[in-house]
């Protein structure tokens, strides 16, 4: 096996899971997410020689994926975000309450506008630092930190409001 092939396989093994989750929450559709990840890695393979530093692999892959996602919108003008996307994930072995709670959180994450959702995904799913997020999104760091603050703030508020009805009727 060539060195290039080995490098590539290592990248796929390390990053495919995180990239899939990021893509899933970015486009809110499991099939599109898989296509995006496939396309991202194919492009990564074709231009692997341009990746000099292995430490830069994560932001590099994320940049490719975001570009692919943007292309999708150039091609199709459907607004996927409008689709009522109550993604219920199969969390086997989780109690009903936990499952319910997760579904509620997931729904609220989907409701966040993409400008707040994206930096939050980069931070929580991809483990990127504020500086890395700023580079990937081509924003200054202050803007990124403000969006992260607002994203959590909105989520917390929305989830606090939801608390009462979740518990059901109380006598």
């Amino acid at each position, binding site marked *: 096996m060539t060195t290039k092939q080995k490098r590539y396989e290592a990248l*796929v093994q390390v990053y495919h899971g995180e990239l899939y989750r990021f893509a899933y929450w970015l486009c809110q559709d*499991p099939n599109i997410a898989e296509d995006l990840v496939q396309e991202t*890695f194919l492009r990564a393979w074709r231009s692997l020689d341009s990746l000099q530093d292995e430490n830069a692999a994560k932001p590099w892959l994320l940049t490719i994926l975001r570009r692919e996602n943007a292309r999708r919108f150039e091609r199709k003008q459907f607004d996927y975000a409008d689709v009522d996307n109550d993604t219920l994930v199969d969390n086997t072995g989780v109690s009903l309450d936990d499952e319910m709670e997760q579904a509620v959180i997931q729904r609220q994450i989907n409701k966040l506008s993409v400008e707040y959702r994206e930096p939050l995904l980069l931070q929580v799913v991809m483990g990127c630092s504020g500086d890395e997020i700023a580079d990937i999104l081509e924003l200054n760091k202050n803007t990124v930190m403000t969006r992260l603050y607002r994203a959590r703030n909105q989520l917390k508020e929305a989830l606090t409001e939801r608390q009462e009805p979740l518990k059901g009727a109380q006598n």
Partner: protein
Amino acid sequence: MNELEFRRRLFADPNDKDVAQEAANNAEQNALLEELKAFDAQLAKALDVEVPAGLAERILANQQADNSHNNVVKKSWFRRYRTPFATAASATFALGLYFLSATQAPLLAGDHALAHVRHEQVAFEGKDEIALQTVNDKLSLFGARLEALPGKVTYATFCNFKGQKSLHLVFQSEHGPMTVFIVPLSGKNSLGGDGQFADERYNGVIEQDNHGATVLVANLGSPVVQYQKNVSNALRWL
């Protein structure tokens, strides 16, 4: 760090080290820090959707396919031009035939077959064997199939036969390469001219029924009727 800034930085990144240091001496801030950390753990759990099984394998298979696709192109330089030249020759030939048939009295199918064979010599240059399945894939467009091949087929290309799309086959026999045209016909257009024909180099035979015609051309003196029978016996119109 004032209260507002503490809150902003904590919400932006619950793992911020400065924020943790600030909270160390303040019970209220510390409680908020713990609350946010717990909230982030919940978030991380909710975001942790299952990755489809076999995704990594599919990505690698996709890359391998991409790779081998790019490798196929590595032909020697002169080979790369063979297909375009053959196509161009075929197109020129078809155009020539069109003008010939448009300007002259209707050509007999036998003469047409001979002219076609004489002009498309490239058909005899193929060396690689073409599988029955490949030939049948092409024939399926006419709604026909061959039960068996008459010999080792080395050429199978769609051609225009008297304005009719046909399959041009070359197979190897004891008597040298033989050419077969399989021409689908719908009742109203017949090829005209039946039976045997010859010139100074080749001889051939045409047989047609309601579905189509089989035209066989071989080197002069070959038992064309016998070979033609082999082909038409193996041919099925669906």
